[in-house]
């Protein structure tokens, strides 16, 4: 009887120790929070007053541009936090609207096509005006850069050769071959006007099949290069176009419109120095530079933050 009591007491002590250990571990883990603050979508402005939240979409160029904007703002003494890899525009636009993200690198024409499928795009300035009219009241665009990166439909070299298409051919020329081709793109390419929807309504293209890959990233590049798909949604600043000899088809109807890199910001997010800093960045960013920076990240595998900082320094923006 006594031995049972003693061993049950020691067992209880073990339990006590285990319980304390568990509780301590839990407390340690909860306390040990490093980095990202959580945020509630229903909470408008979660960031402390004056903190700029720079967001980026889920492809490499977006991360690079976000880093460029963020570091340019930091150089002016602003507090900046990042939210990277959020997802597609369908998600990031929502976060801009509820204030969880306050600065986002966008592409003026693509944003317009997202906000209003039917809007015609005749010139870059006109696009910006049209976008501002359609934006949520809290949001606005800053100045656009000359740098352009738009969606395009590209064929791999073998497919182009097989169907006698070159870089001078247009999307309309693809009409005959399309039903025998598989096209690849991001999952959202399937439902967007600047995607399968528009390709069908504007150019009459219907493809054999669609493969959901990633937004102009390594999966799409590999699929096109390995002929898993014969055509794909390729971003025009993609460094693999030249490397893999992809053939980009011309877009005379301007379905893919303009796509100048433009900061989308919340109206109350930036003080004057911030706006000036971003406009200065936009002034210096042209397509050739963007192509080079993208190649550094995607081909040379350099870290986007390092590439961003190096460029800002060399351009005299920090």
């Amino acid at each position: 009887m006594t031995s049972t009591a003693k061993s049950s007491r020691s067992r209880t002590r073990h339990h006590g120790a285990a319980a304390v250990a568990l509780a301590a571990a839990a407390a340690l883990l909860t306390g040990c929070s490093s980095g990202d603050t959580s945020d509630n979508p229903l909470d408008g402005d979660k960031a402390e007053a004056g903190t700029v939240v720079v967001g980026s979409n889920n492809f490499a160029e977006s991360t690079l541009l976000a880093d460029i904007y963020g570091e340019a703002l930091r150089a002016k003494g602003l507090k900046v936090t990042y939210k990277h890899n959020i997802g597609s525009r369908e998600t990031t636009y929502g976060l801009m609207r509820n204030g969880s993200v306050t600065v986002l690198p966008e592409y003026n024409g693509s944003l317009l096509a997202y906000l209003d499928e039917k809007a015609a795009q005749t010139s870059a300035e006109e696009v910006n005006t049209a976008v501002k009219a359609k934006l949520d009241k809290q949001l606005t665009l800053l100045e656009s850069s000359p740098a352009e990166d738009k969606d395009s439909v590209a064929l791999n070299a073998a497919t182009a050769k097989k169907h006698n298409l070159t870089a001078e051919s247009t999307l309309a020329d693809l009409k005959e071959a399309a039903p025998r081709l598989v096209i690849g793109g991001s999952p959202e390419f399937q439902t967007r006007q600047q995607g399968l929807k528009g390709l069908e309504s504007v150019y009459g293209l219907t493809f054999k099949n669609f493969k959901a890959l990633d937004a102009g990233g390594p999966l799409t590049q590999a699929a096109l290069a390995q002929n898993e798909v014969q055509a794909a949604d390729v971003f025009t600043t993609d460094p693999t176009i030249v490397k893999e000899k992809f053939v980009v088809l011309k877009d005379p109807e301007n379905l893919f419109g303009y796509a100048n890199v433009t900061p989308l910001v919340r109206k109350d997010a930036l003080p004057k120095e911030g706006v000036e800093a971003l406009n200065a960045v936009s002034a210096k960013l042209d397509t050739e530079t963007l192509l080079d920076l993208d190649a550094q990240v995607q081909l040379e595998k350099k870290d986007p933050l390092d590439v961003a900082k190096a460029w800002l320094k060399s351009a005299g923006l920090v």
Partner: protein
Amino acid sequence: MNVLTFVQAFFGDSAHWHGYDGIPSRFLEHVQYTLLALAVAAAIGLPVGLLTGHTGRGGNAIAVVANAARALPSFGLLVLSVLLIGFGLLPVMIPLVVLAVPPILVTTYEAVRTVDPAPVDAARGMGMPESGILFRVEVPVALPLILSGLRSAAVQIVSTATIAAYVSLGGLGRYVIDGLYQRDYEKVVGGATLVAVLALVTLALFWAVGRFAVSPGVRRR
């Protein structure tokens, strides 16, 4: 309730029942991935489990292999396989098979190990060869447990095969991933519902197989 209206909208839309992105075709793709992964995992796990369970040796090795395999994250294995191998079915099968082998292996081993020694002794005493003991005594008695291991593996494959969609393959995961990026909650909820339905169907199938294949004497125990 929100989720239910999404389910209704998704299954009610007739466009969702046709074409390469239709429910029947995605459902079929998903079933194909599941069956293939389960077959490969069973081809690995069953023989090894039966042999080691029968001889009683290698139990520790099995535990170590199973623990190691369980520790590998499916999503990570998928990305790694695709980066190293490229496109196709093989890079998707790797994480699914790695996921499914441990339950089959461990459960089969334990099932054969914990068979009542009396009938096994009797069979040995009667002069049955080792293979006879394994297949005519141990397996029938261990069958319920072996089936439960296979069932557990099958349900997990059904659920995890959704990751195939992340690397451009089909299956029901297509609805979840596409729904995420297209911000189409109907698709996400519809896809999840279909996976749950398939899991239930799998459970029902295994129950039926159990009733069929397990001897009534063993079942009554």
